[in-house]
């Protein structure tokens, strides 16, 4: 079916090429049918709303975007220059493919998506408390291996849902995937149930633990039927192995026989309480109503394995992941929030969402394919400059996103951190991977706020407010990056001689991926003069100013 729609689309695009030269041209889709379909469906909505899209972003802006979004940092000056040397019409496609497939970028690609998914699966705080049951390092190791090998998404989901084994690297039977559920099994696995539904299926069911959902069709019985899949799961402490999890406990996740709450394993049922105190029974049943043999013996029915089949076969999973990835690249998903989907929260582009879900399944859940379709689309390549023709497209005032200009968004703290390391060439002398991640985690701690609930809700102060600005003004990371001590990035740049102009151009390229304007060059020249020949001091001022600018911190 997907194939037919693609075919139909190609014809449609040819026609539009003839009639409106500014609409998506065939040359814009690089011969990739999914890109063509995205372009078509996005532009249909523009027409419906009488919106004209922003002009195309400047090349370097676009390059900066793909580096930030795909590998989690800004491009280096050398990388920008390399792109500039490619004058072919496929140069954007070439760059995306290089970032995705060239082994030189594998580590950074895996690091970026590991960061993103670690935060999704265990939160920014997961595994960082003393005595945590979670090994953050274990979670990261699993994800890093998965993304480095470009594991198909359905396989990743299956492995996480069915995971058994030890949580920390170095333990026998180590399986980092177990860290997702490790601290979510208290109170009969309420959190395991809620987070599995929210993250992998894009449905929010946490309220239906206690009552029917007020806004969607979820009923309390569905929550506990889903919950029944987790009743064979046990987290156990591995005493004597603590040394393997520096910050927390050594733990294992195991499947054990579930004998039901009335001791009959062949009908291993659970009970839950209605608001009026009445007790109801539930058996493992997926959200679409399909149930499994209620036998609780692991040798007969492995409930999480059954659940993983339901999840990976579901339409919900393919659309939830498309929505999440789309939201990552566009700053807005098709729904808001991205993980609360369903009839009560209509998608901005429902057909496109369905289409991409099917195509992603058709592409064997190859995440890199999905990334390629999105980043090569016309909408992703638009400027963030707002024009008269698209100023109505503003999701911040409650309009559903039309993707007619690129939506500004702030870098994540992790992106800032990695960007500074590359911008200052510090990556050339980095410690080993685990040590790097530990240092980054420690630095990240200053931004995290926990809300004091059992659900581990949290927020970050790296959100564009004063604490962040103070960190950018005065923090150690910035102090280090702008240091002028011998051998530092600035000192090296200053030592290259000339009047500093070349060095200033370099700083602009390294931070905001453009050349300074005439005014800016003039102002920088005044700075250089005021430092009476101390070029390093002047460069330090310029670098500091650039790092503190909106243009740097905002992905645009």
């Amino acid at each position, binding site marked *: 079916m997907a194939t037919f729609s693609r075919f139909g689309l190609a014809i449609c695009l040819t026609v539009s090429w003839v009639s409106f030269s500014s609409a998506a041209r065939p040359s814009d889709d690089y011969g990739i049918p999914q890109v063509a379909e995205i372009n078509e469906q996005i532009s249909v909505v523009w027409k419906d709303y009488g919106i004209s899209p922003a002009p195309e972003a400047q090349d370097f802006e676009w390059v900066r975007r793909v580096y930030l979004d795909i590998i989690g940092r800004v491009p280096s000056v050398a990388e920008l220059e390399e792109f500039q040397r490619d004058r072919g019409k496929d140069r954007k496609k070439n760059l995306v493919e290089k970032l995705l497939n060239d082994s030189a970028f594998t580590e950074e690609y895996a690091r970026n998506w590991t960061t993103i998914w670690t935060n999704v699966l265990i939160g920014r705080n997961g595994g960082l408390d003393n005595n945590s049951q979670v090994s953050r390092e274990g979670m990261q190791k699993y994800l890093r291996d998965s993304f480095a090998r470009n594991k198909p998404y359905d396989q990743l989901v299956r492995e996480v849902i069915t995971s058994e084994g030890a949580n920390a690297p170095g333990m026998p039977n180590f399986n980092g995937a177990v860290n997702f559920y490790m601290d979510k099994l208290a*109170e009969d696995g309420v959190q395991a149930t809620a987070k599995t539904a929210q993250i992998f299926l894009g449905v929010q069911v946490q309220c239906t633990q206690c009552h029917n959902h007020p806004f969607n069709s979820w009923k309390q019985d569905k929550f506990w039927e889903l919950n029944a899949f987790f009743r064979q799961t046990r987290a156990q402490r591995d005493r004597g192995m603590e040394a393997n999890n520096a910050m927390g406990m050594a733990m294992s996740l195991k499947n054990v026989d579930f004998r039901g709450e009335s001791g009959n394993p062949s009908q291993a049922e659970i009970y839950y309480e209605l608001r009026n105190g009445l007790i109801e029974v539930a058996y493992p049943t997926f959200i679409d109503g399909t149930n499994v043999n209620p036998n609780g013996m692991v040798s007969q029915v492995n409930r999480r394995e059954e659940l993983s089949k339901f999840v990976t076969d579901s339409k919900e999973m393919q659309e939830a992941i498309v929505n999440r990835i789309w939201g990552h690249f566009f700053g807005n998903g098709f729904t808001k929030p991205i993980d609360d989907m369903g009839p009560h929260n209509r998608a901005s582009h429902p057909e496109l969402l369905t289409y991409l879900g099917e195509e992603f399944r058709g592409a064997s859940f190859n995440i890199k394919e999905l990334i390629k379709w999105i980043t090569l689309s016309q909408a992703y390549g638009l400027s*963030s400059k707002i024009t008269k023709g698209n100023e109505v497209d503003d999701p911040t005032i409650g309009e559903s996103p039309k993707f007619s200009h690129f939506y500004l*968004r702030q870098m994540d703290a992790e992106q800032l951190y990695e960007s500074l390391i590359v911008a200052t060439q510090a990556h050339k002398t980095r410690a080993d991977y685990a040590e790097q991640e530990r240092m980054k985690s420690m630095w990240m701690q200053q931004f995290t706020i926990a809300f*004091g609930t059992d659900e581990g809700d949290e927020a970050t102060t790296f959100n564009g407010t004063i*604490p962040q600005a103070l960190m950018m003004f005065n923090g150690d990371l910035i102090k280090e990056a702008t240091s002028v001590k011998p051998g530092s990035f600035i000192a090296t740049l200053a030592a290259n001689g000339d009047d500093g102009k070349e060095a200033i151009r370099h700083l602009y390229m390294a931070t905001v991926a453009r050349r300074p304007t005439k005014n800016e060059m003039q102002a920088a020249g005044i700075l250089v003069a005021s430092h009476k020949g101390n070029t390093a001091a002047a460069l330090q*001022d310029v670098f*500091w*100013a650039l790092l503190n600018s909106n*243009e740097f911190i905002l992905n645009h």
Partner: protein
Amino acid sequence: MSIPTGMSRRHFMKHMAGASAMVAPAMMMGNAIRANAADLTSRGKSCIMLWMGGGPSTMDIWDLKPGANTGGPFRPISTSGDLQICEHMPKTAKIMKNLSVVRSMSTREADHGRGRYYMHTGYVPNPNIEHPGYGSVVAHELFDQRPYLEIPPFVSVGGGSVGPGFLGMSWAPFTVSSNGQVRNLKMAGMSEGTLGKRLEMLKLVENGFINQRRGPAAEDHAKILNKTVNLMTSEQMKAFRVTEEPEAMKEMYGTNGFGQGCLLARRLVEAGVPFIEVDLGGWDNHANIFNTLSDNKLPVMDQAMSALVTDLEQRGLLQDTTIVWMGEFSRTPRINGNTGRDHWARSWSTVVGGGGINGGIAVGETSADGTRVETEPYSAEDMMATVCRAMGMSLETTFTSKNGRPMKIANGGKVIKELIA
């Protein structure tokens, strides 16, 4: 601390103002130039919100049901007001003449995120718009009345608050930990002259980007830069130095995060900050609730809350400081199989007192087992309207969200009349 040496604040701000005169108004570094007349005598109304993250069981604290099968083990005790409260709140009992309990709260949001949002904003979550919370609303309304204020008008101690929504990032809470430590406040190895030069350079880049019409995020960034410069160079930041309080004062509040947070809140009220929220989490007691309350949560809360009210009163600040105590919801009257209580929003209590509020009374009633409100039910909107009125704000105030939709302050809630002094 961070005041540039050898250069007065005034000189410094002038320097910045001169620099900004030639650029777009969105980037007005040093907009606190008006700050010179530090007329502290005109210090206006403030509000301290004590936010109980997780949803405290109010029928074990403020509305006891001794003898009911839902009642739990705690006994009520008499207070200096016209109502009884839990036996594990003996210090607060002594100052209850200043605080009133609304026992007829009835809301519908029993999910943490949704409840936190609703109780903070008076609006149920809506995917299409973000509403401003109490702190941002109050800061927005009262900021102009305090031209002397150089530090943020909305401080969240311990985090967990709700943000500014459509009012924009410049009304976001300034989040600090309960020891009042503000990270990275010290200018890092640069003189004020250097900072001035750097800011001029920064301004060029910042405004260049804004002038390309990149949208509100670019402008918000500039506003936050201004506020940050103001704050870095302000003497008023000493209000955050709660560690400099005498030991006896620290001990009166309790030498724990919440106690010190409340003490910090009092210092900030003295400095003229209109809204301070102090967080105490850990009320999500699905299991083992009674031991947790009597051994841990209530002693901490009792000490800090009573010290705060006493201290404000002794300093003559209580009449201008409205105090609000609430969580996102409460807990089931029914005690579950783990000796816990689950989420419950249908019948519960909040507490208000201090400036503009009649203290010492209980408003409304719940049924004998605590499962129903038997008098007029009150909502988050009503609470917010009452607090706004107590602070002298007009309930006719209307915000216009960015899409032009008018939004009434407190979402049109009705004032709880018995409470208004």
